[in-house]
């Protein structure tokens, strides 16, 4: 039963299984284990990124399409919620309308892009998506009447999932029972369902064909698979999941702007997470997103400690200054490519084979 839930894709490494269980339990009880607004925000961001990265892995790791336009769909999802909430007010209906609209837009766009991906070579396609994504970001900041321009949109959501809503005056286990908590669990459930769905898709016969296409498109066509259909379907599915991740982000932040959901930075983070976690494995997305988001969120705090420890070495403390946290993020990029060529999942699985 449990095996079916995970689509018979067992972690194939005890350590990996343990890690996964830790992550899932950690996220499930995050509000109680890690109190505080910041910790909860980090946990929520982890959830969003797990879905986003897993959806990207469907495209990159399984189908072998390098696209920089994935954040575009993430952004569409976020703007869908943001715009509808701004225009139609803070109701559940508005949210649904926004989500539905965003999904339709993503569907159409990703369909077009998916078809286009067959026309040009892989590198060119990657570069074109890079350009398209940056154009889309420009467009979002230009259409300020709709999108709020560079300033973005701040909006309200239904009372039930807003921080001001308290459904019990008594804190439970030291945690105040408010709308923020409900919102977190809404995201949690969504993330679990979406990840399981993705797991199912990549472990279906369809998913196997995607891998074949990644390996040798020409031969896949020759043995009878219509590459166009498979690729386009994968592109569309991945875009739709990214849209849902975007909606999750907007619901949590109750804010959206071009930098928040459309920036190239996010795209690069997603790429890195896929690689750190391990390409071609949904579990990689889960582990990678968790580690990366936590590292990114607490790197500055960590550097503050390191910096004060190194305060008598001026040049070192200049490098360890929290202002230079990006420097260390860059180092993390480089090191992870050096030391995790097959990602954490790949590493753990080879270890388990020994």
């Amino acid at each position, binding site marked *: 039963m449990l095996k079916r839930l995970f689509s018979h894709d067992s972690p194939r490494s005890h350590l990996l299984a343990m890690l996964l269980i830790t992550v899932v339990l950690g996220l499930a009880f995050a509000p109680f284990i890690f109190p505080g607004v910041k910790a909860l925000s980090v946990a929520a961001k982890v959830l969003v990124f797990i879905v986003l990265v897993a959806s990207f892995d469907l495209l990159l790791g399984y189908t072998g399409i390098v696209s920089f336009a994935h954040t575009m769909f993430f952004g569409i999802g976020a703007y869908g919620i943001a715009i509808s909430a701004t225009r139609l007010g803070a109701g559940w209906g508005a949210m649904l309308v926004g989500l539905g609209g965003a999904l339709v837009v993503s569907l159409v766009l990703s369909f077009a892009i998916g078809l286009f991906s067959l026309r040009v070579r892989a590198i060119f396609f990657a570069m074109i998506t890079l350009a398209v994504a940056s154009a889309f970001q420009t467009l979002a900041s230009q259409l300020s009447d709709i999108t709020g321009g560079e300033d973005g949109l701040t909006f309200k959501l239904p009372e039930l999932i807003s921080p001001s809503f308290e459904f019990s005056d008594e804190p439970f286990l030291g945690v105040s029972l408010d709308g923020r908590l409900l919102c977190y669990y809404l995201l949690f459930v969504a993330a679990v369902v979406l990840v399981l769905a993705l797991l199912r898709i990549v472990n279906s016969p369809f998913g196997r064909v995607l891998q074949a296409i990644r390996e040798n498109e020409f031969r*896949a066509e020759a043995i009878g698979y219509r590459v166009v259909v498979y690729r386009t379907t994968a592109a569309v599915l991945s875009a739709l999941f990214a849209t849902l991740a975007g909606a999750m982000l907007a619901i949590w932040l109750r804010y959206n702007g071009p930098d928040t959901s459309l920036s190239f930075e996010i795209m690069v983070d997603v790429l890195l997470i896929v690689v750190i976690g391990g390409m071609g494995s949904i579990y990689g997305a889960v582990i990678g997103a968790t580690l990366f988001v936590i590292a990114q969120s607490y790197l500055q705090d960590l550097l503050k400690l390191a910096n004060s420890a190194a305060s008598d070495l001026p040049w070192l403390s200049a490098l360890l200054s929290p202002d230079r946290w990006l420097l260390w993020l860059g180092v993390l990029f480089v090191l992870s490519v050096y030391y995790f060529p097959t990602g954490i999942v790949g590493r753990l699985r080879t270890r388990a084979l020994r």
Partner: protein
Amino acid sequence: MLETKDLTIRFGGHVAVNGVSCAFAPGTLTAIVGPNGAGKTTYFNLISGQLKASAGTVSLDGKSLSGMSPSARTHAGLGRAFQLTNLFPNLTVLENVRLAVQATRAGAHRHGLNLWSIWSDHKALIRRADQLLAQINLKSKEYATVASLPHGDQRKLEVALLMALEPKVFMFDEPTAGMNAAEAPVILDLIRQLKKDKSKTILLVEHKMDVVRELADRIIVLHNGALVADGDPAEVIASPVVQEAYLGVAPKEAA
């Protein structure tokens, strides 16, 4: 019945296949011979749809295949193994074959994309793939990745993929090239078995004359893209065009 009519393709000014009309009946093995660059592989490419003909048509059992994509032609019953090994290098041997089995059954586009079942539930596909591997002596390597196989084993796998498709027409492009003399018989045996099934059409490109002599029911000769001889093996091999241009018996400039 597989049939080509006036099949022609030009690359720039170069005519690689030049108005080849030929029919291949079920139950016969036709060997296609000719010098290097004669257009044999290109002819295959035109039949199986990897290349679009400049002129002429291909039909199978009276149904035109022209304009169909390679995958559609595969579903129509054409199966093809490649001259230069062309597999899924980072997947396992078993997975390679299983994918080919799947292409003809569940998950093929005719039956929908099949994205909501779990692949390991399709036990029959895996059993069939296993069976095929046993037939070509690769069962012991089923979990090795293809990239780590020696060249000869990759050639065998190439043939296994073709067998998995269970087509009506089998097209072999030098199936034993680079294969050890002790291993080649495994492939040749397979082909012999296929010949017994009288409903199958078999096309074989091969440079080894002893193999051709033994297996072929009929030989056609391509030279500079054109069909220059067609008929009974012994006769064709004895014909001057084959002796000179191909076997180089009376040394004269080839190609």
